[in-house]
């Protein structure tokens, strides 16, 4: 069983690395986003507040590099998990016929996503460190990790409702851009920190990254981490509940 699982994982990984969209989103997009952010953003001080009422006065460029890293990771995770969910829905019946169990299929998919996203996360993290050294680098890594988790789940969620790749890609891309660049971002001005924005997937990871970037208080992370996990859980449960209620096995 283990041997078959390894074979399937290797096969899934190989086909993922052959997919140009995945290569583009996991390697080229983070570089493009971070470098353009670094190049264009004004190096002027800006004043903004954090969710825990902490008032900060920091460079706009540094704020944008941190949030830009999260945007890149969010788009990458969302798109990859969305494409894989849709493709998996199409392929898994055929794999089951060839003898693979649902557990083997799901595990190979998870390991493949984890491997690809780890590469994307590490490259984004290292590049952001090159452009701006935060007060707490580990905190930035935590923020990147939880953005990846929540947007991977978001990709699964969209994949459940939108089976046409064009529609889903568009939704994931626009939503993550608007969430992380405008709604959850201090650059969003008047909308930032409005009570309803805390239910957006990017809100809590952004709070962690800003905290880690400019303050050094790891105890603060627990609240945002729990919020992120709670929102991820809700996004994960809704499709399962729906499929249980309608007994349609996924669609």
């Amino acid at each position, binding site marked *: 069983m283990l041997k078959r699982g390894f074979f399937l994982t290797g096969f899934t990984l190989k086909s993922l690395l052959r997919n*140009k*969209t995945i290569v*583009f*989103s996991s390697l080229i*997009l983070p570089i*493009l986003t971070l470098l*353009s952010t670094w*190049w*264009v*953003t*004004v*190096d002027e001080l800006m004043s903004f507040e954090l969710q825990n009422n902490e008032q900060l006065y920091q460079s706009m460029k540094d704020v*944008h590099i941190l949030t830009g890293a999260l945007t890149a990771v969010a788009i990458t995770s969302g*798109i990859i998990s969305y*494409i894989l969910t849709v493709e998996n829905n199409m392929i898994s019946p055929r794999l089951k016929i060839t003898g693979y169990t649902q557990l083997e299929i799901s595990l190979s998919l998870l390991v493949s996503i984890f491997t690809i996203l780890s590469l994307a996360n590490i490259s984004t993290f290292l590049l952001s460190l090159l452009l701006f050294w935060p007060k707490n680098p580990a905190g930035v890594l935590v923020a990147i990790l939880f953005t990846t988790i929540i947007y991977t789940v978001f990709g699964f969620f969209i994949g459940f409702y939108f089976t*046409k*790749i*064009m*529609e889903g*890609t*568009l*939704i994931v*891309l*626009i939503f993550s*851009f*608007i969430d992380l660049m*405008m*709604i959850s971002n201090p*650059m*969003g*001005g*008047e*909308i*930032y920190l409005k009570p309803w924005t805390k239910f957006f997937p990017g809100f809590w990871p952004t709070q962690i990254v800003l905290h880690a970037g400019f303050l050094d208080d790891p105890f603060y992370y627990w609240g945002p981490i729990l919020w992120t996990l709670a929102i991820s859980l809700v996004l994960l449960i809704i499709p399962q509940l729906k499929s249980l209620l309608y007994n349609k096995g996924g669609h």
Partner: protein
Amino acid sequence: MSKTLLLSIYKNFLREKITVLILVILPLILILTATATVPDQTTIVILEGKIIDPQPNAKALAVVVNALTAVAMVTSITAFFANIQLRKVKPRLEIMGYSSRQISTTFILFATGISILTSVAIYSLSLIWFTPYNSLGFFSTLIIGSLLFSTTGLVLSTLIKSRELGLYLLLTIVILDVAFLEHPFYSRQYDNSALIVMPGHYVIRMVFRAAFKTGKIWIQYLPHVILYELFLFLLLILVTKLTSKKG
């Protein structure tokens, strides 16, 4: 050109779920985000080294940029889809008796129609939040922008065979160009001449001039836009020829 063919393309397009998404929801979200995130106060904008006088309202400026972003996104995605659809249905339409020229003309008319429709819709939507100094100029620049980005969508759909990668790349270019690199709020390089390689560089200048300046000053950039459009068109012909040779 066949009227029946054009009508059936429109009917098919309007039946798709994604049409509602790109024609209605996307522009609405973009313009509403602009109005919700930016304060209602005047702002300093420097264009070609000179401060725009009188100083524009920040909210109006954000609406203008996001209106152009919406036009660019909607028209480029529509053209992208239309070209993919054209490739798919062309052999069947040819069997039905339509000539290659008839089919291509119909699809070009379809994309142009969508460009005009989108520009009208987004122009009307932006008027709720601000009044441009030169209404005709603002409307015209939206149409010009829509045509330019339609051609960008056509080039990418011909150049890249993978639909997802093409759409992804197209949206990355549009968002990066209009909503970020050329955005006076986010970018300190928006007046940088290195950005002339981007499709939105001159169009956004035309839109600013039409929205915040009186007179015909916005027309000055028209030759640059026409030149860029011509370049894209030549690229499109070249890529089409190369890919058809390969095929």
